[in-house]
Structure formats: C-alpha cells, structure tokens
C-alpha cells in the first residue's frame, strides 16, 4: 500500500477550506457512463425538504387567497406571507390540515414530536413514536446519494419533561428514524457542510479497509497455498470495496477538473466557521445555503431543517422583539409576533428563491423539489393544533401543481390529515406506501 495514497486521504479527512462540487446535471457524465450528445436526459432527481417553525404564527396576518380577478392572477397574500410574493406561481398555501394524534394530548411536545409521523406519542421516560416521512423517504431513496438525508437544526435539542409529562425530546426532534430514536440533529453549520463534502463516513471506512487489507496481506504471506486462496478472496474483496470508495472520490476530482476555467458552472460555498454562529440570522441562512447546495449538487435529496424547536428560547433583537420566541408566541396577535412570523416566512422564501435561482435543465432545482414549511400550532396563545400553518414550494418535476390556495378546513377530519398529504408527496416522489401514520389514503384534490 503506497504511503502517499494514505497521506493524501488523511489530509482530506481533516476538511478543506472551500469545497466546490458540480451541480447534479453537469456531474452526471463522470458518475455514470460517459453519455454522448443527443441521448435523452435522465429524469431530474426529486427532492424534499421540511422547514419547521414552532409555537404558531400570527393568525391575523398568515393567510392567502385566490386572486379575485381569476385563477390566472397571482394569489393574494397576508402581511406575514409577503416575502413570498415573487414566488406565488411556484407556491401552494394549504390550510386546514392536522394530526389527530397531536390534539387532545396536551400542549407543546405532544404536538411536535409526531408532526412528520402522525404517531401517537408515549409519555414518561420511554420515548415512543414512529418513523417520520423524511426518514421513510431517506430509507427508500437515500442510497443514491452520499447522504441519505440531512437533519439540521438552528437550536440545540433539549430533553427533560414537560408538564404534560411528554419528554421534551419530542419538542426538539421532528425527524425520527424509528419508534424510539430521533435522528441526531446537526446544529453546527461547519459539520453539516463537512458531512456533504468530505463524506467523512466513507473516508473513515476507507481508512479501516486500508488497514485491515494491509494486515491481511501480512497474514497471507505466512499462509500455505491452500489458505492463500481463501485469504485472496478476502483481500480482493477488501480492495474492491476500497476502490469503489476511491472511484467516487476520483470522479469528484475529475468533475472538478472538467470545469476548471469555467467557474460559473460550479456550485461553491465557503466552509462555515467552526462553532455556532453568534447571530441566529447567520445560522439560519447558512443552514438554508447548505440545504440548497446539497440539493443542487445531489449530495442528498431529503432534508429537514428545524429553524427553532418547540418551546424555543431564541431571541430576535434585530426584529425589535423583547421576548424570547416561546414567550412571544403567547401573545401571538401582537405586532412583535407578526414580525417573528414574517421573519420565518422570509427564511422559507430565501431557500425557495435560492433553489429557484439554480438552473437545472429547462427548469430550476426548485421546480424539481418540494420544500414544505410547517408549524406545530396555528395559534401559540391557544396552543391550537386543530389545523397547522403549511405551505409548499416547487413542483416536484411536474408532479405537483403549484400557484394554488387549498383550503381543507371545512372537510371532515378524515379528509384533512397531514399524513394523507405526506402519502401524496411520497407517491409523487416514487415511493408508494399503502398507509402512513394515521392515513390510509392520499390527500384528495391536491
């Protein structure tokens, strides 16, 4: 085993200052067989992202309605949704959906830990819920990308018990890998960034294989001819797997070389600084940038970003807000909380616009994605989860019609389930499920 190969690999393990990588389309030739011009383009990957805000919105200013002048005119938006005005044609505002299991169980954690699963949550020390929609998608689709999903947050998770006797872990985690464990959430932008571009897990495996391979070669030298045959089988398997990892890395480098001198084709982003950003505005923007970059370069197709956790302690001095998030939400009709609500909406608008600015074929990355904004309550003062604020942006490569205001509020409970929406979205992403959470059928009229 050449020492130089070892060294170069190890240098990469430490993380580079800037990572550059190719957008999905441009990177294709080096990943698969080299295609020639004129061959039909492969289907664009469909991506799904959830942005989560907690403790409700200002209900007076959080609305959208169809334009009175007809369906060809852009929808009208309330004050808090104003940041989305440039995007109305790619937007759906969906009103009236809810999780039955998040009602009648007490406030906060019981309304949050199941927002993406619809599960009935367990009280007390032992956690119990169900796999969330993003992780189900990640399990089915994630093997095609370097990371099966990104699970990010802008506020540290907490545990402990809420007065409802639900664990506070439910307030901190919306993404669950199974009934008992949440997905570890990355709050450090630098580490989230590294997970995409260094592919640390694969490199650690490469290092392990390198070592066991070298070690087995020594053993082989001592072995008789018979035994060598069996050890060779092992050694060649080790080398084969090692090479596959190596090939991926080479492919990336090759991609980089292809566009040298053509820098505008590159997606690039400086590596964020270590540690947590001091300013929450920087934190949220960096996390949105990472999701956008990950989608554009097809490092992952599934992401959740917890902008704040439930019972959040975030402060917004730049919004002239004196109270922390949770306290402010108890006065949810205030101007202060309107500003906070609008600020969160602007994060959604930021990510959507960013994706919409990324050309991909004839359309944009946003056109091939569905990003969903969701909140665990309608009203923070009433702690009401009979319906939740929800919007989507992006058309999932033509699978999801946009520019609509959909209202399910007057429908019977069975026809306005969040889990039905999740089923619809999963189906449109090519993951067919018979049932999910408390839903047996997809959302009608989506």
């Amino acid at each position, binding site marked *: 085993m050449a020492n130089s190969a070892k060294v170069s690999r*190890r240098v990469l*393990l*430490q993380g580079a200052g800037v990572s550059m990588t190719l957008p999905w389309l441009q990177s294709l030739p080096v990943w698969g067989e080299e295609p020639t011009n004129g061959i039909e383009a492969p289907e664009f990957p469909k991506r799904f992202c959830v942005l989560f805000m907690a403790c409700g919105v200002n209900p007076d200013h959080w609305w959208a309605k169809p334009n009175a002048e007809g369906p060809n005119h852009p929808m009208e938006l309330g004050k808090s949704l104003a940041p989305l005005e440039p995007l109305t044609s790619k937007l759906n505002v969906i009103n009236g959906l809810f999780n039955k299991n998040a009602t009648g169980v007490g406030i906060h954690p019981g309304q949050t830990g199941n927002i993406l699963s619809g599960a009935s949550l367990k*009280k*007390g*020390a*032992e*956690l119990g819920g169900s796999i969330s929609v993003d992780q189900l998608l990640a399990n089915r689709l994630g093997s095609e990308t370097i990371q099966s999903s990104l699970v990010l947050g802008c506020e*540290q*998770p*907490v*545990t*402990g*018990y*809420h*007065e409802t*006797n639900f*664990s*506070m*872990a439910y307030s901190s985690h919306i993404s669950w890998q199974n009934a*008992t*464990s*949440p*997905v*570890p959430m990355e709050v450090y932008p630098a580490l989230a960034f590294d997970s995409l571009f260094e592919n640390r897990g694969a490199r*650690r*495996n490469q*290092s*392990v*294989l390198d*070592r*066991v391979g070298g*070690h*087995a070669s020594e*053993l082989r030298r001592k*072995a*008789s*001819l*018979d*035994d060598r*045959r*069996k*050890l060779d*089988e*092992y050694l*060649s*398997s*080790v080398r084969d*797997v090692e090479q*596959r990892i190596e090939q991926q890395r080479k492919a990336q480098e090759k991609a980089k070389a292809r566009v040298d001198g053509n820098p505008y084709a590159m997606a690039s982003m400086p590596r964020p600084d270590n*540690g*947590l950003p001091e300013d929450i505005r920087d934190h949220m923007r960096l996390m949105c940038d990472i999701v956008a970059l990950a989608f554009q370069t097809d490092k992952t197709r599934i992401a959740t970003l917890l902008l704040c956790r439930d*019972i*959040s*302690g975030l*402060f917004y001095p730049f919004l002239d807000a004196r109270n*922390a*998030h*949770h*306290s402010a939400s108890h006065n949810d009709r205030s101007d202060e909380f309107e500003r906070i609500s609008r600020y969160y909406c602007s994060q959604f608008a930021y990510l959507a616009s960013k994706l919409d600015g990324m050309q991909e074929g004839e359309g944009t990355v946003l056109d091939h994605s569905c990003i969903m904004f969701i909140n665990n309550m309608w009203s923070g003062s009433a702690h009401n989860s009979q319906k939740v604020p929800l919007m989507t942006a992006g058309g999932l490569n033509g699978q999801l019609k946009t520019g609509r205001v959909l209202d399910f509020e007057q429908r019977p409970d069975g026809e306005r389930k969040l889990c039905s929406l999740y089923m619809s979205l999963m189906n449109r992403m090519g993951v067919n499920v018979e049932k999910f959470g408390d839903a047996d059928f997809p959302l009608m009229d989506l």
Partner: protein
Amino acid sequence: MQACVESVSDLHFGSALTSRSYVFLLAWICGFITAESVNAEDSFESSIRPFLKYHCIECHSGTAPEGKLDLTAFENRQSLSIGFSVWKEIEQRVATGNMPPKEASSHPSEDDRRAFTHLVRSTRRDEAVRLAGDPGIVMVRRLSNAEYNNTLRDLTGIDLRPAREFPVDPANEAGFDNSGESLAMSPALLTKYLAAAREISNHLILTPSGIAFAPHPVVTDTDRDKYCVQRIVDFYDKQPTDIADYLHAAWKARIAVTSGKGVSLETIAINHRISLRYLTSIFAVLNNPDSESTKNGPLAEVRQRWLDLPNQDESAVRRECESLRNFIVAVRSQLEPKFNMKLKGIHDGAQAFVLWKNRQSASHRRSFLSETLKAIPYDKLPSDIAIALMTPSDDDLRTEFHRDLELFCNLFPDAFFVAERGRDYLGVPKEKQEKGRLLSAGFHSMMGYFRDDQPLCEQILNDNELLELNQLWQELDFVTAAPIRQYQGFLWFERTDHNFLRDAEFDFARPENKDAISAEMVKRLSDLYLEKAKRMSATSDHLQAITDFFHDIDKQIRWVEQSRIHAQKINLDAIERFVVRAYRGGLTSSQLNEIKQYYTSLREIDKLSHEEAIQDLLVCVLMSPEFCYRVDLSLQSAERRPLTDLELANRLSYFLWSSMPDERLLAKASSGRLREPSVLAGEVDRMIRDDRVRGLAIEFGSQWLDFQRFLEHNSVDRLRFPQFTDSLRDSMYQEPIRFLVDLIQQNRSVLSCIDAKHAFVNAELAKHYGIVTEDSRDSSEWQKVSELPNSQRGGLLPMAVFMTQNAPGLRTSPVKRGYWVVRRLLGEHIPPPPPGVPELPVDEARLGDLTLRQTLEKHRQHESCAVCHDRFDSIGLAFESYGPIGEHRIHDLGEKPIDNSAVFPNGNAGNGVDGLREYLLKCRQSDFIENLCRKLLAFALGRTLRLSDDLLIEKMREDLIAEEHRFDAMVKAIVLAPQFLEKRGTNEKETKDGE
C-alpha cells in the same frame, strides 16, 4: 397405462448436488495415482474393469450418462478410495441385483457379481486402513453466518444477529454450511460485514471503567439516557425491599432459635433472597425484649404483633406479615416530612430550589420530625392507623412515644429509594404526580437526574452491591453528560421560559455559548445570580440553596470533563482486551502495538475524536480476518501437524457451540493441558451442558434434518389451514431444536430420536397436537411432556415441522416424507427421477376414485419407478395419519378414511408411526447410527468425509453401542481422533490440481 408420478423437487436438487460432487471427485482422483500396490492394480485391471466394461459402461458414459454417473472416469484402483461414497453405492446396487437393470443387454453371473462386490469392498477396506486418521484439508475460512452472529453475541453480550441481512451460506457436499469448501467472500458480502461492524459500533458505549454494548443503538442523548437510566432502574427493581419478607424471615430465625436449630441468619437471608444486613437490623430490634425498646408507639405495636406470630402454620404467618407490612407502610407514610422552598421572582420549579428540596427529603428518609404529627389528617385515616399515631397526653408517655417514632422511622424508612419523581415542588401528592419520569430531579421542563436512595445504601446493600450502584450512577453522568446538559437547560429556562436571567448582565451565559459551562463562567454567573437574589430579599436558606446549586453542578461538570479525559486510556485498554477476545487467542504483542499506533494515527493524523477513534478501532477489529475467519493456517506440505492448543479450543467451541471459546476454555488452552484426553473429555462434558450448545442443536440439527429454512416455508394454504400462523410455524421450527438441546444436555441415547416417549411443546403446539399440558402462566413457555397420551408424538419422526415441510400444501406426500426418512435419517442415496413424469394433483380431494396410496401403488407397477420408490413410498405411507400441517387425522381431505399400514422395504408389515419406529429400530438401526456418525463427523471437521475417516466412523459406532448410545460417546470419539487434533497441508500434486 398412464404413469402418474410425483415430481419431487428436492430429489432433483439432490441430483444436481451429486453430479457436481462427481466432477469434484474426478478432479481429486487424478492427483492420487501412486505407484504402489501393483497387485491391487492388477485385480482392478483383471476383475473390476472388465465387469464395468461389459455390464455398466454402455449406459454410464458419454455426455449424458444414466443417473449422471460416468464410470469411464474410474479407471484405476485409487479411484476406489477417492470416489468411495460412489463406489459404496455401486457395490450395494450390484450386490442387491438392483443393477444392472432387468432391461440391460447383459447380466453378470451370480459368481461374477459376488466376486465384483467382494473385491470392491476389500479394496476399499485396505485403502481405509492405510489412510486412517488423515486430517484431510481444512481450509482457512470465514465464519458462517450463524457462527458470526453467535460469536458477536458472546463477544459483546448483545444478540444483534446482523447476519440476518447477509446472503444465505451455501452448503458443502455433506450438507453443512461450515466448511471452507463452500464459504466464500465477495465484495458485496464484505460491504455487508462493514455495515454490520458499523452497526455494532453504534451500540458501543464508553464508560469510566471501559467499554460496554447497549442492546439498542446509542447515537443520541435520548439513547444514552435510556441505556443508563434503565440499568439503574433495573438495579432498584431487583432489590429486596418488601418488609413483609423480612418480618417473615425474622420469624423463621426466631423459630430456629427457640427450637434450638442452628440455622444462621445468613442462611435464612439467602433462602428468602433478602438482604442479610437489613434482616439482622430488623431481627435485632424485634427480637430483643430487653433493649431500650419502647412500650408505647407504632414500633412497640409492630414488635408485639410480630412476637404474637404463631409458631406453626406458615401460610397464616405469611398473611399476618403482609398485613403487618401494610400497617407499617400506612403509618410510615404519614410521617414523611415535607420540604419546599420558594421565592417570589424565582420559578418554583427552578433547579436550585428543587434540588434543595430533594436533598432535604433524601437525607430525612429515616428521620422523625415531630412537626409531621401536626399535619396528620386523623379523621381521614383508617382507625387502627389513626390510633397508632395518636400522641399520648401524658408527658412521660409522650416522650416515650416520640422515642418510639424515632426508632420506628429509623428502622423503616419512608422509602428505600425513589425511582421516579414528577413535579414534586407543586405539592401534589405522589400518586397524583406525573408518572414515568425515571430518576428525574423533578424540575420544570428541564432535564436533570437526582439520586435518592440513601436508605437502600445504608440498610439493604452489601459493599459489592453498593459499589455496583455507585458505578451505575457515575456511568449515568459520564455517558450522558447529564450535569452539562442540566446546566445548559438551566441557562435556557431561566433566560427564556422564565425570565430571571433576562437582564443584560447575564447575556454572557447563553446556552449556545460553549464556554458557558467553564468553571470561570459558572462562578461569574453564580455571583451575579446571588447578587440578584439578595436584591429580591432572599433569606440565608435561599442563598445557601443557590450557592450549593452552583457549587455542586460545577463540581459535577468538572468531574465529567476530567473523568472523560482520564477514561481515554481506560477505554483504549478495554478495546485491547476486547481484541484479545475477538481474535480468540490469536493476538500477538506486535499486533497489540499496532492497534495502539492505529489509535494514535486516527487521533493525531485523521483528527478523529476519541469516541470516533475507538469506534473505528472496533470496526477494524470486526473486519479483520482474525475475527471473521478461522485462521488456523496449515503447513505448506502434506505433513501433519498437531493443532496448537488455542486452535484446538476454537475447533472445539465452533463444533459444540457454533461460537467462540469462552474464558475458561481459553484458559485451559493457555495452560497447555487441553490436549490431555481427560481434560478434553472434561471440557466436552462441561460444554455440552452449557446453554450455548443450542448452537450445535440448531446448526447441526437443522442442516442434518433439513429444516434450516422452515421459517420461510410458505407452501401451506392458510385459507384451508387458518391455524397455521407465523407463530405456529415458529413453534414447529423450535420443536426439534428443543428436543435436540435436551438430548445433548441430558446426554440421552441417540436412539431417542426415533423412540422417545416425550415431546417438547409450548401452548400453541400442544393445542395443535391435542396435548393437554399443565397450566402455564406464560403461553410461550416450553415444557417437556413425558406422559404422552398415545404414541402419536414423541421423537423426531412425527414432528409437525417435518410433516409440513414434506407435504405440498393440500395433501400429504408419502414420497417426500419417506424420502426424508431414508435420506436424512438413514443416509441412503437415491438417484433423481427421470425427466417428464406427470405431477399428482395438488389437492388430495381431487384424486378421483383412487386414494393417494392407490395412486402411488399404481405408479410402482412401473419397474423403473419401483427401483427407487420401493425404498421409501411405504415409509411415507406410515405417516398418513398426519395431515398436510402435521395435524393428527382420521380422514383425508377427500373425506376418505386414513389407512396408515405399510409393508416396509424388507417385507415387514407395520402400522403407522409405531410400526415405522419398530422397523427402524429393529431393521435399520445400524443405518441410522452410521449416518448420524457420518453427519456429525463431517460437521465437526468442517469438511466432506473421506475414505480415511471410515475407521473413525467404526469407532464412533462401537463407542456408541458400548455407552448405551449416549450422545457424548460420539462427540468424544471425534474430539480425541487425529482428524480433529491435527491438520495438514496439501501435497504438491493436490495443490497443483486444485489451482
């Protein structure tokens, strides 16, 4: 006439295997030609070869030889020793007149026939003697999937079975998946090994004393909490804290003393499974009339009632002890002191005050505080409790009453430990508090644990138990970083949800700030916090509580930080010990150094964290050939060498446990005495009684008897047999394993496979069999039924698993069932059926006028069919009383009455499975035993048998007969044989041909 034959898929499968094996054998034959034994060669040339030429080769040659047997390949004497199993078959077929077939063009005379068979037999025998004891080639090989699972289980203590995701291991010629001949490695499989190793590393926990593995993945804080909290709660749950048990045991002690029996308190404590320490205290107080005992108060009452316990009638005593316990608990709960601390401006559920309150409660669990008497709601209590707590008005009596209460409270704490706590600070009674908050400190919204078990530690636990509990609590802080998280929660809560820290002066103490937990910042915050509290007119108690809080949490945080640094070396040492075990003795000191170097390079060059580096070390170990292979390397030549002691230990444990050697076996190996026959036999005795011998029952049993894949068996029509659930299928699968584990552990006669009068059933299987079992609380529990009501069950033959697997769904299959018996139990080789035989209907209700029996009879009228079917159809017909899922029946699905009579291959007649048992025991016992010996030997050696093993087989048979057929006779014959104790390499010729 229409020939109606079953096309039995596994017959065809068998043929495919056999034909492959011929090719394999031929490859070997060429390698074994030597110049010796010219005379024998002459007889081969003069007698055997002409016989083959005239009578056999016409059909058995060419591109499509009959029975896929090409006899032109056998052209010299050595071919008899290499293709010995084929030659055995040839010899038997010729001897019985079965071959050449009647329609053949030429037939040998009887003399020719006798001469031929005699010659074949004696030549084989000569060869067997000449080669006896050859260890053969046993290649380096990876662990089979089952061995891999079991080894990981024994290594880590958790049963993850990651190989469930691996492809199924192929079997070798002998039918077992544990040989280098069949166990290959591929990149796809290696990727799965890597994923499995990573999965295991997700279960790794670094502890202050080493490493541990959790039964669930530990990647988030909640996972770590779950692991540590559960261990403490489990520890509490198993403590003997029921006072009734102590009163009862103390009574026993009193009786022993008065009756003059010398029974010690220690013995009584052990018998009652209670704490000697606490029993001693209770006995001293209750049974000591002249101590400073009080005459007035609850303790006096308890003592009197205890002294009044009758000397006989233990069940009455027990009832009275329980009632006395209830009295104690009821009285005691009224005397529990209440503490609370509040200050306007600080949240009631804030950490400093809640912890103060918890500390007060925890340290007063054995104290009597007279103010508690004032709060007793006498009018709401049952009268006996109220009376017991009534303070006498007389001054002297009152003093004595208080002294009694002190002693009472001291002996009986209000709780031995508190395993869960809701928001106690709200002042609601315990029964109305939130449930399930295990070990919680009881803060508002914030996480935090609180240890409250002083009485348990002071009164119940012995020194070792106390040490264990202390370690568990240390582990909780260490593993979950609880103090750090608790402090971060404090910063979040008091800054946002509560607003104590909202002032600008506290801005530095934000939970996002990594430095906020530093000693310096904690001190700074403590000072500012106290200043503000003073401004809010806090009392000295308040200020002390706040001071204590900051002091304690700082100390705890520092402990976590420092002990985590300190533990790094301990963790690394633990990984080294882990590697020694994982390599099963095959670790050299230079390898050990390499491991340390690798750790250093992971830390220093790759910049991994300590935990990541340890994880990668672990993955490395689990990926290395020393772990996932059996690497007892052979020599470069055909020379034999004894296995080293460690190699022998491994061979033994993978034979008997399908898993790694345990510490004791390795110690025996290290002592260098394992090879001594008595030591080796002693280890066999120990190991076959160990629970891990289940590995042998499953791996050997399920492959020998062909039910390894039964859990995937899906050809039962569940609409017609709704009782056939996944769970019943699982029970059917378990039955032979239970049976064999018992046979092995109890060292029963191997003949009990055929004639056992007992069976093992759980509730589900008992119902399926119509067996009435003793009531058992747990329906999944297995029990041995010795007194079977009739002979329908007992032994392997009528087990539902075999009946079901060898039936196509809506009818039985006498062909398959009979074939299973002769092939699996008796070791017969049956060639495949000719192509193009029509299928029988799948449903026996659609057979028309004929029964299945008659249909098969018709089929056997064809001579070419009869050649084979005569050998097993009748055996299968004896099972006709068992339906398609092994249920007992008297009518078939076509409503025709069952006829289970049979005329067995030797002409004997019998009825049902009883008749079959008799036939097998009387006429086929030696076939059964020989086959079992061959199978077990092939499994033990991990290779296909050779002619050189014939003498060992003979010895195994002789030993079995001499030892009343006890199982261990076979095992001991194997492990003491040179085949097991030695190994060799290939000679040049073999190697060349093999490559």
